[in-house]
């Protein structure tokens, strides 16, 4: 039986699909009986989704760069 500590240690591999079939089953079995670990994993997923949705800093001087690249392309065409 997996401990909570081990479940946490393998949680990223679980989320990234890096565990073998057998390891996944062991992980799922633990989650089935452990509300704390289920909460941990649910909140890990929420944290991932939050990072995905965080606004990115806009590119500084995007117009100048676009202009330079378009000009460079025309020179090379």
């Amino acid at each position: 039986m997996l401990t909570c500590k081990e479940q946490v240690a393998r949680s990223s591999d679980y989320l990234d699909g890096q565990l073998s079939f057998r390891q996944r089953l062991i992980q799922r079995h633990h989650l089935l009986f452990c509300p704390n670990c289920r909460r941990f994993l649910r909140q890990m997923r929420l944290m991932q989704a939050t990072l995905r949705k965080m606004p990115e800093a806009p590119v500084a001087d995007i117009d100048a760069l676009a202009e330079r690249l378009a000009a460079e392309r025309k020179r090379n065409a």
Partner: protein
Amino acid sequence: MSAADDTQLLERLLAGEQKAYKELVGTYQSAMRAVAYAIVGQRHADEVVQDAWLSVVRNLAGFQGRSSLKTWLLTITANSAKSRYKQNRREVLLDDLPSPHGTIGDERFSSADGHWLVAPFAWHADTPEALLTEAELRECLEHTLLSLSELQGSVLTLRERQGLELEEICNLLDISLSNVRVLLHRARLKIFATVEHFEETGQC
């Protein structure tokens, strides 16, 4: 972007349409910067991205569409970074820098049976939108992201924000899969600890 979008954008880029370049830069520069940042560090990342853009434009006609445009751009960026700064290439640093709110460390678990000693705190918010409405939490997350090592921060960004597969990250950054897994996991636990701290105390 789908392959069809790539093809359409490519035609406009080849025609030298400035608006198409703006779209290209807006869509992909963050990912390119994360790749450069991981390989050469913050000090040289901007130069590398500039180099990469010029190289992209000069080689545009040779893009065959065998990979996605994104993969092609990131490969060019990684190559610019590696060729320009080969001599300074640092070792893969797995050592952890301290993070503002720590991590989910061994002290959270019983040394006797490995069960939670301090169970994960239940967050109030249950969607990303709800979490991100708190301006202070957003700042707090940015702060924690900046506390990560250059490599760890980049790996997290490439995976979570840019959606790259682990194998793509390995190939771009020339690091092993096991190192990517370790870097990613440690970074996630630190971010988790920051959100947990904020949800528990209401403060950064």
